[in-house]
């Protein structure tokens, strides 16, 4: 079982979850940001500036965020939006007299503006991606192209169709873990159930005759795959939300995410897995197709060699 992969996945999940918490805090406190921008800033603060989630939520990065908010106000006032018409205003100036006090105020504003240019780099996607690639590749082992795709999944989630998500995964097999996490996150928040039901259907249809799925399977750990399939079962209502079985599944997924191999899973959860495999044939089928050495094999051994 791929221990490192699991640790990395777990780290990714925590990191993404922390980023979302921070982004929600930023949006709530500073109205100038939308969630997409706030996510960029959250990642920047946590990776580049080494802030912890708790530190940011305790207001320790507020000074930085105030500067960044000021920059965002100027961006919003100065940059034409995508669908905004070009408005030309004739340059007609008039001379006016202002007091020395007002001049001092203006000088103060310019000084502030000079000062806040120090946080400029946080505004821009390219720079952010460079920073993310540079740091994230060390920290959570992702590739440059994946950062871009992850952003698409994270930021444009509501725009993504099931086909697009599947194709993103085919092009970037390593992303499947992230996608699974996102699906889990969205499920728990009651979003996009339709899309993931659709993904499940596409997966089922292509499973046996689409070679483009090979790279995906080769990259997914058994535990991740199991989590995904269980999640899908929950989405499809095969496991009713908040039922006793649902709670068992959550416990099983959580333990699988933490433990390095099947052998480390508690006896109680092995029983749950066995029950699931017996009850939901889809689950067994999916796991069995994944590789020759699967959880299914391990479970079979556990169950006395029965297929």
């Amino acid at each position, binding site marked *: 079982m791929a221990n490192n992969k699991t640790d990395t996945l777990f780290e990714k999940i925590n990191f993404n979850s922390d980023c979302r918490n921070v982004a929600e805090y930023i949006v709530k406190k500073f109205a100038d940001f939308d969630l997409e921008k706030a996510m960029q800033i959250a990642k920047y603060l946590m990776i580049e500036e080494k802030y912890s989630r708790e530190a940011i939520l305790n207001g320790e990065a507020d000074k930085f965020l105030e500067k960044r908010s000021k920059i965002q106000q100027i961006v919003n006032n100065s940059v034409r939006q995508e669908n905004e018409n070009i408005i*030309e*205003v004739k340059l007609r100036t008039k*001379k*006016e007299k*202002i007091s020395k006090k007002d001049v001092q*105020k203006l000088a103060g*504003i310019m000084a502030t503006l*000079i000062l806040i*240019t120090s946080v400029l780099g946080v505004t821009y996607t390219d720079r952010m991606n460079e920073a993310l690639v540079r740091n994230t590749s060390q920290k959570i082992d992702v590739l440059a192209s994946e950062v871009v795709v992850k952003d698409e999944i994270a930021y444009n989630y509501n725009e993504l169709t099931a086909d697009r998500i599947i194709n993103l995964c085919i092009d970037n097999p390593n992303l499947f873990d992230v996608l699974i996490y996102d699906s889990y996150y969205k499920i728990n928040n009651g979003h996009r159930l339709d899309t993931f039901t659709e993904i499940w259907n596409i997966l089922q249809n292509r499973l046996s005759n689409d070679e483009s799925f090979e790279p995906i399977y080769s990259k997914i750990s058994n535990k991740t795959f199991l989590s995904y399939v269980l999640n899908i079962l929950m989405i499809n209502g095969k496991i009713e939300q908040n039922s006793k079985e649902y709670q068992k599944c959550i416990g099983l997924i959580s333990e699988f995410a933490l433990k390095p191999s099947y052998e480390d899973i508690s006896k109680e959860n092995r029983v749950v897995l066995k029950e699931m495999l017996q009850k939901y044939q889809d689950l067994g089928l999916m796991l069995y197709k994944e590789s020759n050495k699967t959880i299914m094999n391990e479970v079979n051994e556990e169950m006395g060699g029965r297929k």
Partner: protein
Amino acid sequence: MIDVNVMTLENGKDYIITDTIINDNNNKYLFLVGKLDNNDIVIRKVITKNDGEYLVKLDSEDEFEEIMTLFGDKHKGEKNEE
């Protein structure tokens, strides 16, 4: 009392021209501060037509970044430490 140049933007508000930046492509940009609300800061690009000069919004955040970077460079050394 000191003379300043004031102009009215498309939103009907008066702004004081506080700085001018020219980039490598010879485009001119104005830094404007709201006459009544000094926290209202905007940047506009100057475009020249036959009948005079006009102000327009910037096309992208990249352009904004470029101009703010030039602004920072122009005022290097004036930066106050916090």
